[in-house]
Each structure stands twice: as structure tokens, then as C-alpha cells.
């Protein structure tokens, strides 16, 4: 499992100013995201309610404020969902060859989930990961929070399964380094993420969240 990794991911040298991710920093990041969501929501809702209390005819403005309170958190969640988007596809031959290599790297369950959703699950010390072509989602133990990371191999002409294999190997080399190199795109409740995902990816997130709940 990834927890046995002790080596430091070489790519972390490129982000030397970032402290390595740990449990405390992940918790802090989660709370910061929650506070940000609160700040983007509650004051606007309160202002809308206050306006309606003062003057019911101000309802058009109140609706705008409510829409603002709804849209901003949705945009953040969409940003998180984007880490699981698909890259462009190459020809069938390279994709099939790359799929064979990825299949050799993972077990039967992961192969099956990838076949259905295009995403590969991986257990780590920080939680359960779901690795895609352009990023990864970390489901924390208990399944109540996800962290979405934008991380990719900057090569334009790689088959999709090779993109996942690149990220998977790096994750297995150094899970903490992987989370340190990656750019965090979102953190929040899984349901917020699932709503913004394409239908293909939703079952993967739901299943990994379920596993995180069972194994916590």
C-alpha cells in the first residue's frame, strides 16, 4: 500500500516553498474551505432576508443575493469536479496498449471500476484516492470530506490510461509528496462534488466514499 512509501517525490523540489501535506494541514485546509463557503453564502442570505423584512417589494434584489449565495459555492464545486475530467483521446491502438499497462498496475476491482468510470481507486494513508487523467480526489477517512487536486503529466500526446498510470505511480512513490505537488481545487462535502460531476464519474466517487465510511 502507499503507506509503505518512504522516498520523497522528486517533483516536490519544484514546489520547495510548500510545506509537505500532513493530517493537520489537510484538516486546516478543509476548515478554511468550509469557512470560505460560509462567507460566500450566509451573509448574502442574511442580507436577502433583511431586505425582504424591510421591504417585501425588494424581492428582485433579494433573489439576486440568493442566487449569488448559491452560485459561488457551486462554481467552487465545479472547479473540484474538473479535476476528474477526461483528456482528449488518442487512437484506439495507443489507448488499448496503455490500458494493458495500467491493468497490470492495479487489481481486479480497480480495473473494473476504471472500465465503468474511467477512474482508478487507490488506498493511501491520508484516505482513499480516486485517480483520473487530469487530477485526483482524496476521500478522507469517514467519507465526510473530499479534497480535489489538480495534477497531471504535462505531455500533450499521451493515452488516457498512461496519464492515470503516471499519477498512480507518483502517488505510490510518495503520497504526501503527491498531495504537496498537486494544486488543491476544492474541498468540501462529497455530495457537493458529485452533483457537479459528469454522470460517468459519479458512481466512482459514491463507491469510494462508501468504502471510506465502512473502513473508518
Amino acid at each position: 500500500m502507499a503507506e509503505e512509501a518512504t522516498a520523497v517525490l522528486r517533483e516536490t523540489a519544484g514546489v520547495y516553498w510548500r510545506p509537505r501535506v500532513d493530517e493537520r494541514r489537510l484538516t486546516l485546509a478543509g476548515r478554511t474551505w468550509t469557512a470560505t463557503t460560509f462567507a460566500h453564502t450566509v451573509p448574502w442570505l442574511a442580507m436577502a432576508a433583511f431586505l425582504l423584512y424591510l421591504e417585501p417589494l425588494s424581492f428582485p434584489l433579494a433573489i439576486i443575493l440568493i442566487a449569488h449565495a448559491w452560485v459561488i459555492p457551486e462554481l467552487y464545486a465545479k472547479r473540484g469536479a474538473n479535476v476528474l475530467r477526461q483528456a482528449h483521446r488518442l487512437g484506439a491502438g495507443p489507448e488499448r496498449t496503455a490500458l494493458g499497462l495500467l491493468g497490470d498496475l492495479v487489481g481486479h476491482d480497480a480495473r473494473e471500476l476504471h472500465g465503468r468510470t474511467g477512474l482508478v481507486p487507490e488506498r493511501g494513508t491520508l484516505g482513499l484516492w480516486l485517480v483520473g487523467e487530469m487530477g485526483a480526489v482524496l476521500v478522507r477517512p469517514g467519507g465526510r470530506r473530499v479534497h480535489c487536486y489538480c495534477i497531471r503529466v504535462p505531455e500533450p500526446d499521451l493515452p488516457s490510461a498512461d496519464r492515470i498510470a503516471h499519477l498512480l505511480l507518483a502517488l505510490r512513490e510518495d503520497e504526501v509528496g503527491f498531495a504537496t505537488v498537486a494544486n488543491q481545487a476544492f474541498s468540501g462535502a462529497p455530495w457537493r462534488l458529485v452533483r457537479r460531476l459528469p454522470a460517468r464519474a459519479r458512481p466512482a466517487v459514491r463507491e469510494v466514499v462508501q468504502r471510506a465510511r465502512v473502513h473508518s
Partner: protein
Amino acid sequence: MAKLIRMDKTGHTTLAEWTLDDQAAVDVAVRAFREQLDAGYYAVVTRGEGHAEQVRELPLDAGTVILRRPIAGG
């Protein structure tokens, strides 16, 4: 037989294959390995389920050595 493979636009390319008792094949593999590292690839060996190790010298006893590109935050 051990293999050195590179993930690339073809899916993957086998750059060298060797056995410990074939010194000529080992030499070819070591040379290919160094060329790829010089070209910016990282070499990774899987070490059991869910664990991988980056190597800077060709591990001759490994079953498969995979060459990957560096990753970066998006």
C-alpha cells in the same frame, strides 16, 4: 525476462529486455536506461501492491522498470 518500458504516445514502448545471464542485453538495457534519464524521464519500479519506488540505477533484478514523465500541479 526483465523489461524497460517507456510510457509514451504509443501507449508504451519496450526499450530493452534482459536476463541476468545475458551481459550484452544488460549492457544495452543500462545504456537505454541512462539515455532516458538524461532525456528527463523518471524510472519507477513497483514494489508490491500499492507501492512504487523511483530508481536512478537500473535494478537488474526487477521484473519491469517503467519510465514516466515528471508530473506537475495543474
